[in-house]
């Protein structure tokens, strides 16, 4: 039997979406084909320390309390692996006689961190720099989609319907948002469109820090919440009769862009907030989390392939999702979210998640041409190997005739 490739799945992270990422990472590990891959769990704790160990597989370990690291090995990623030898983690364990150093070789990293420091291109850039193969979006796509304003600008320029927006930067320390100036900005950005507005942090996914405002006071309050998480905040008009639709996109082996089943997340609250999104049907740390069947994005009640969508709407969702995937040169399993006014039927592209919760596997399993999570993980990994291998051509200075120093 061939030697199995070691797939390091990196999850957790210094991100407000840390907990969801733990579920996503563990689910990915559980869906690795045991015939060809060996999973290596790599947990990034909220302090930024990296850990591995079999104990990471148990959901009951989280949140990892200090002093609870028994059985775990602390890791550092070796960024200076010489060309020709494979990527590796360096380990250090405290033994009886001082520190014991070691290394764990691996073949590819799967970033399963949601939000900042993982989904936003920073980790991808680091891995590209070190020449370490990784799965999913490359640096550019990950960074460009994480910034909601930038992503919308690109979409708008290519004719994809998006909502108008107003971008505000965090006021200097000690200062507050000026309501009068804000009113003026609102008028110039939105014209006749008045309250309610939606406020979002510019660089986060997962509905964290998103708020609805019915008047100027609520707007200022919502902005302050958003500014706690990000130095840029985005104001958009609230879509009346709101329905949301999500679809996942990936590139098939033949190079064509594929879309998954469409989902409409079900919710009771006015707005899809974080708790609603992830914890419907279970309490955090409750026994359900152990089941693996109803956790993370999966536990969210959803309508798959909703019947109310017309053919034109479905076509818009699928084609715009594919379009943005191509525009931003995305990879992996990407989820594209849309807003819809269910009365008028108008649709807007809302945001792009390059590391969606649970890698959106449930959308692929429900697709017309169903793809099991097992096959999805294999596809994501193999695409990652191919993309990383094809990134750079020769890096020898001789290649372009750019030599300045005499070479033997």
């Amino acid at each position: 039997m061939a030697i199995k490739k070691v797939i390091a799945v990196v999850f957790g992270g210094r991100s407000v979406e840390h907990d969801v990422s733990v579920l996503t990472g563990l689910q990915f590990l559980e869906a690795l084909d045991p015939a060809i891959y060996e999973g290596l769990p790599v947990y990034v704790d909220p302090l930024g320390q990296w850990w591995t160990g079999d104990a990471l597989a148990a959901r009951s370990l989280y949140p990892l309390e200090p002093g609870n690291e028994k059985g775990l090995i602390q890791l550092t990623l070796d960024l200076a692996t010489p060309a020709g030898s494979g990527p590796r983690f360096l380990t250090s364990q405290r033994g009886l006689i001082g520190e014991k150093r070691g290394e764990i070789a691996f073949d590819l990293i799967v970033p399963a961190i949601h939000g900042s420091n993982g989904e936003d291109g920073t980790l991808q850039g680091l891995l590209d720099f070190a020449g370490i193969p990784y799965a999913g979006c490359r640096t550019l796509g990950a960074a460009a989609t994480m910034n909601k304003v930038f992503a919308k600008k690109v979409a708008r320029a290519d004719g994809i319907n998006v909502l108008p927006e107003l971008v505000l930067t965090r006021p200097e320390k000690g200062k507050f948002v000026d309501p009068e100036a804000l009113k003026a900005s609102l008028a110039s950005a939105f014209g006749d469109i008045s309250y309610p507005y939606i406020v979002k942090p510019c660089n986060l996914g997962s509905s964290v820090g998103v708020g609805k405002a019915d008047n100027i006071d609520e707007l200022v309050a919502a902005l302050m919440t958003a500014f706690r998480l990000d130095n840029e905040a985005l104001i958009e008009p609230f879509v009346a009769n709101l329905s949301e639709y999500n679809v996942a996109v990936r590139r098939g082996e033949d190079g064509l862009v594929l879309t998954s089943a469409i989902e409409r997340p079900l919710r009771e609250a006015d707005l899809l907030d974080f708790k609603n999104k992830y914890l419907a049907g279970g309490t955090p740390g409750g026994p359900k989390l152990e089941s693996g069947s109803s956790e993370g994005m999966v536990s969210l009640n959803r309508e798959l392939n909703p019947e109310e969508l017309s053919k034109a709407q479905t076509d818009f969702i699928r084609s715009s999702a594919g379009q943005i995937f191509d525009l931003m040169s995305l990879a992996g399993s990407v989820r594209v979210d849309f807003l819809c006014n269910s009365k008028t039927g108008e649709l807007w592209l809302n945001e792009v998640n390059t590391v969606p919760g649970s890698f959106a596997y449930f959308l692929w399993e429900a697709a017309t041409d169903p793809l099991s999570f097992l096959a999805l993980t294999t596809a994501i990994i193999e695409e990652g190997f191919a993309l990383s291998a094809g990134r750079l051509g020769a890096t020898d200075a001789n290649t372009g005739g750019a030599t300045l120093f005499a070479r033997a």
Partner: protein
Amino acid sequence: MEPTQIWHSETSGSGMPSTLWLHGWGYDNRAFARIAALFKGTGRHRLFDLPGFGKTPLLFEGASTKDYAEILIEQLGKDAGPHIFIGHSYGARIAVQLAARYPEHVKAIVLIGGAGLPRRRSLAFKAKAFFLKLLGRLARLSDQIFKTQYRSAYVSRFGSADYKDAGPLRATLVSAVTENLASQAKQVKCPALLLYGSADTDTPVEIGLRYEQLIPIARFVELKGYDHHDILTRGAYQCEALIKNFLKAIDND
């Protein structure tokens, strides 16, 4: 034997191969809901409620795994297969019985955390078990002679959760936990896949390894980090991959 009622089952898909799923003690067909869904598009899948569980009524008091196997074959009637039987825990006992007794109806068996072989116990454990059994008998004797209530107190103190919950199935449970399918395992003619979680304390890896020695054509795989129950949920994809691989290997032979 009295005529029995049709066992309740949930069927999905059609055509060949035909896969029949037999759940573990205390579960019903829903135990396989997640894992069986991953086999969509691969023939017909029937998820049974075993007698006494889910929507299937009791068989008769003290029915053994042999009876379950016999009646299942009777129920299948003209739908003679050969079928692939996938059994979890107690369901695996029935799969072994089926494969041993009705080889013509069985194409392959997959045992997930399969029970049916006695566990190796330490001398201390055996001594403790002997003492407890004796205590139980004494309690029953005392109840019969002196009209005391010791037996129920004994059960609530020392009985397993399954034993306490078994109700009318208690005799069946007792016959199952004391049965040894070693000789049946030796008679299995079809290929068998044995999946055991490394963290399983109900049917530890040791049982799978012994099945591997007993069943002539067997493939044993230990799934790291899974226990007796979450092997069906968290471990669904691992099981899916291993089962599909195994079935492919059979078809290529």
